[in-house]
């Protein structure tokens, strides 16, 4: 038995010395050291020996086994190192390519503002895109044939009412939701109303007939002009940083009185004047004003009890400024080369 073990030891060690690579080493391991290898075979024979011989041979067998395993491990380690040196691994190559999807840039801008307004306590409301003339115009203090209807070229839907007139529009502004919101929730009210709006105009790099707005309104007792300014200043700082300034000037919108435009200092040139702000230093971002008493009344709110302000942005414009997008048509174009950049 001892002899057999020594023979096996000698064979193994000789073979081990001639091993050049890891696959050959693996073969050697299988032949001698594995569960069904020669060493296990010999060890299996131990049970046939007498108790005394078995103990003696067993001890020797253990010594041999440990030695062989140790030598094997040494060679494996050496070959392994050689192998690592031989096969150069470039640690700088990229890892697995994990595919992901992208959200639309307008979704991103919209969420950012929704979350911001939530911090000021404004809820988010939705309204119809196919809207009656009543909510899109009349309720907003724009009676039929008011010149203000010229300000917005309106798509009409080919469905006449009982008077044989077209009175369904694709909403020209998210303001249609103002009166709906007042009727539903009453006062006080703090809400923003983002959504898709439509204007009947030819498209080019700067004009789209389908785009997005975000409307906001706050109604409470004693809400005034200075309050509106504070909210709009906060919006500017949110959009363009803590140094952003707000400039307001009169602008006519039938649904507010007084009506105003809000401009923020250009984030690119900090008000110095550049291409983005057309060298004015200001970016025209928001339309706003104190809610017209007729609009409050249309919403069932008593203008002597309550007052409020309203404002609106074009989300496409915000996204264009934020991401330096130069063609508004890209938003509805569905081109993945565009959409996969956000």
């Amino acid at each position: 038995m001892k002899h057999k073990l020594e023979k096996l030891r000698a064979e193994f060690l000789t073979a081990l010395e001639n091993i050049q690579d890891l696959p050959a080493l693996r073969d050697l391991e299988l032949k001698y050291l594995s569960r069904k290898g020669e060493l296990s075979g010999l060890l299996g024979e131990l049970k046939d020996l007498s108790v005394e011989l078995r103990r003696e041979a067993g001890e020797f067998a253990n010594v041999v086994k440990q030695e062989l395993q140790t030598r094997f491990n040494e060679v494996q380690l050496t070959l392994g190192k050689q192998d690592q040196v031989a096969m150069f691994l470039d640690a700088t190559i990229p890892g697995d390519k994990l595919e992901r999807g992208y959200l639309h840039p307008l979704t991103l801008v919209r969420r950012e503002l929704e979350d911001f307004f939530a911090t000021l306590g404004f809820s988010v409301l939705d309204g119809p895109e196919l809207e009656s003339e009543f909510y899109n115009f009349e309720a907003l203090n724009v009676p039929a044939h008011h010149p203000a209807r010229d300000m917005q070229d309106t798509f009409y839907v080919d469905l006449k009412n009982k008077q044989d007139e077209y009175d369904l529009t694709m909403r020209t502004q998210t303001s249609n939701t103002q009166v709906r919101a007042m009727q539903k929730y009453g006062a006080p009210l703090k809400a923003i109303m983002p959504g898709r709006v439509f204007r009947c105009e030819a498209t080019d790099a700067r004009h789209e007939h389908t785009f997005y707005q975000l409307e906001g309104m706050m109604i409470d007792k004693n809400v005034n002009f200075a309050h509106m300014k504070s909210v709009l200043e906060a919006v500017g700082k949110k959009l363009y940083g803590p140094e952003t300034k707000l400039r307001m000037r009169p602008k006519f919108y039938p649904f507010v009185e007084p009506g105003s435009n809000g401009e923020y200092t250009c984030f690119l040139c900090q008000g110095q004047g550049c291409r983005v702000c057309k060298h004015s230093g200001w970016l025209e971002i928001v339309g706003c004003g104190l809610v017209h008493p007729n609009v409050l009344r249309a919403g069932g709110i008593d203008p002597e009890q309550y007052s409020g302000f309203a404002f609106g942005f074009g989300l496409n414009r915000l996204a264009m400024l934020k991401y330096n997008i130069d063609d508004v048509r890209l938003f509805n174009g569905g081109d993945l080369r565009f959409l996969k950049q956000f």
Partner: protein
Amino acid sequence: MYLSLNCLKDFVKIPKKITPTELSDLLTMHTVEVEGWQAQSQIFDRVVVGKVLSVSPHPSADRLRLVQVDVKKETLAIVCGAPNVAQGQRVPVALIGAKLPNGLIIKESIIRGEKSFGMICAEDELGLGPDHEGIMVLADHAKVGQNFADYLGLDDIILEIDNKSLSNRGDLWGHYGMARELGALLKTPLRPYLQINESILQPIGKDSVAVKLEDKNICPRYLAVKINKVKMMESPRWLKERLVAVGARPINALVDITNYVMLESGQPLHAFDASGIKKISVRLSRAGESLETLDGKDRLLPESSIIITDGSEPLAIAGIMGGLKSAINDQTTSIILEAATFDAVAVRKASQRLNLRTEASMRFEKTLDPNLPSVAWQRAWQLIKEIMPEAELAGEPTDVINFKLESEPLAVDFSWLKKKLGYKLSRKDAINILERLGFRVSLSKNVLLVTTPTWRAVKDVVIKEDVLEEVARIVGYNNIAASSPAVALSLLPDNPELRLERNIQDILSGAGGLHEVYNYSFLSEASLTKLNLEPTRYLKLVNPISEQHVFLRHNLLVGLLQNVRLNQFNYHSFGLFELGRIFLPLPGDYIKDAKGELLPYQGKRLGLMIAGADSAAVFSRAKGLVELLSRTLWPQSVAEFTALENSPLWAQPNQVAGIYVAGRELGLVGLLENKVTTSFGIKLKVAFVELNFQDLLTLSNSMPSRQYREVSKYPAVVRDVAFVVDEKILYNDFWRLLVNFHPLLNQAELFDVYQGGALAAGSKSWAFHLTYQAKDRTLTAEEIDIIQADLIQACRDRFDAQIRNF
């Protein structure tokens, strides 16, 4: 609209130290938006005085000449077509790069083989008059090389106003109104508009014009006066210059005067040739009436337009344009001057229907002050008398007055005003601001009683909030300091709809790997035809902008297919989704108005589209995405696909399934018919999912909140079994039997589908991992054997399923 600084200075004192930019800013920040300003000299940039050195015939064109022109710095060769060009003339020369007022940009060119390095200009090309008979010949003393603007002595500054910002301010459509604003802003005095020697208002005779208003509602005021001994002549240079400065084209002195008075006062005037007009009658047009207008076009008059007639035949479209027959002409010696106020809505409607917007109609539709005609006609008469001293007033003006503008003063509580502004302002300052704008203010305790001037009373300032705006804008919005509103703390209400939208977007763009698109709400008729749909069944626009966007989308499919077509050239395998509204001619959820009618249906849909090379793969991926969505939104439920009785036209039969979760139908998933994809120009295989967002929301709201399910401490035993069934047996039916079979059989997961090979034709094999587990003990092999034997028997009984053992 253009404003001439010189003209403004006629009415209000503007301190010299104020620059045009400051003036523009002042108006922009307090009144209306000034889009920009331009020194008049810039209008003739690169137009200089040249001297014609020689004129020779063009070798290949009889009517053209080759001209050498000295412009001081150099001598230019110019090809000229004017018959009157002659050696020695001083002429205006537009150099290369000049942009003329008519929009023409001068470039180096070759005309019939001869090079030309500029252009010698005619009067009309420079916007200085109607003459195109020949080039403009300048005075002999004109300095060669001199800037043309300097030669003309043009020193005006022109401000451009954004017309849209004027839409509520009829009073600002003339220089005098703007001057009034500047007076209030600069605190400088405003001159009265009219400064006239009363003696010239004495008529020579008693020839007053007979005026009849057949419909009193359409014309608050009509003033007409006959003026004799006038003639067709050119306007004096100052008048032409004033008109040119603000972009109006000089025509002849009488027409120019009416235009000029409109630009000054905002009141449009019209001059009829008086010959043959016995009387003036104002009425609404009747069906079929037409008029040849000043621009030479024969126009059918829309019914119920206001027209001026001679008692029977139309002479002019009121407030829009005059007729050619009664226009001022070479033989004119006597005119009827009209200064009137017409109903704004009627003028606007007629102008829209005629598609004819004029300087006059733009003003009338803003609603004008009916007091303006009396000053405007006198101003026009003053100018006529100045230019044609022999002119005579034939009689007293006929003035039909049909309005009352004595508005009650508005009571504006001063403390209310201050509170609404959030600004500390003295009562004196507020009153001062209003008075400078022409309001009359008296005080009763702390209440301002504000009487609106007639030019603001027509529509513009009618409630106390309007008065508030006047004060606010003159104070300056930027001088009001921001202050945070102090309101009671309130809970932001939960918004399950928004939450679900965001969840869906995040799941699909995250683990789903889909890209979000926003498509138009409109479709072309062609796209409906491609889907075999009848266009008359869908809503469409009355006034579409292009044939691509006519119908309101009734699904999200078409937009997504168009996205695939576009992207297939750059990507071979991709997925898209859109969450948006569709429109159907059925009553929807939103009310239309107080009468309780409902707007058309416009529910939201969620559309998913998978494109790739292999049909089975895209269909399977589409279903996988539905499962992902369902699993993430409602972990306690499983999405099931069920066979559809009626598959939609776009889908391949048998490759379409209804989607159910918790027993609720949510939408469908299908593989696109090849004919459809081909017709959309798509080469890839496409699968589409459409889910009804409202149903997703209802389901989400009805689902119990997430609950942790205890993980069993005892091991699960997985047995793999392959069943062979007829290929027509639907997975969903079979699977239901498995999962509902025994409480210890927890899961049945399909891991292989096989057909062909050793299997009999018409049959298929499904291999399942069947997972058995108990919460309270380790299951024994015997226990499981019994359940599984029963299960296999049940499958055999119900589906004739065999165990696949080869």
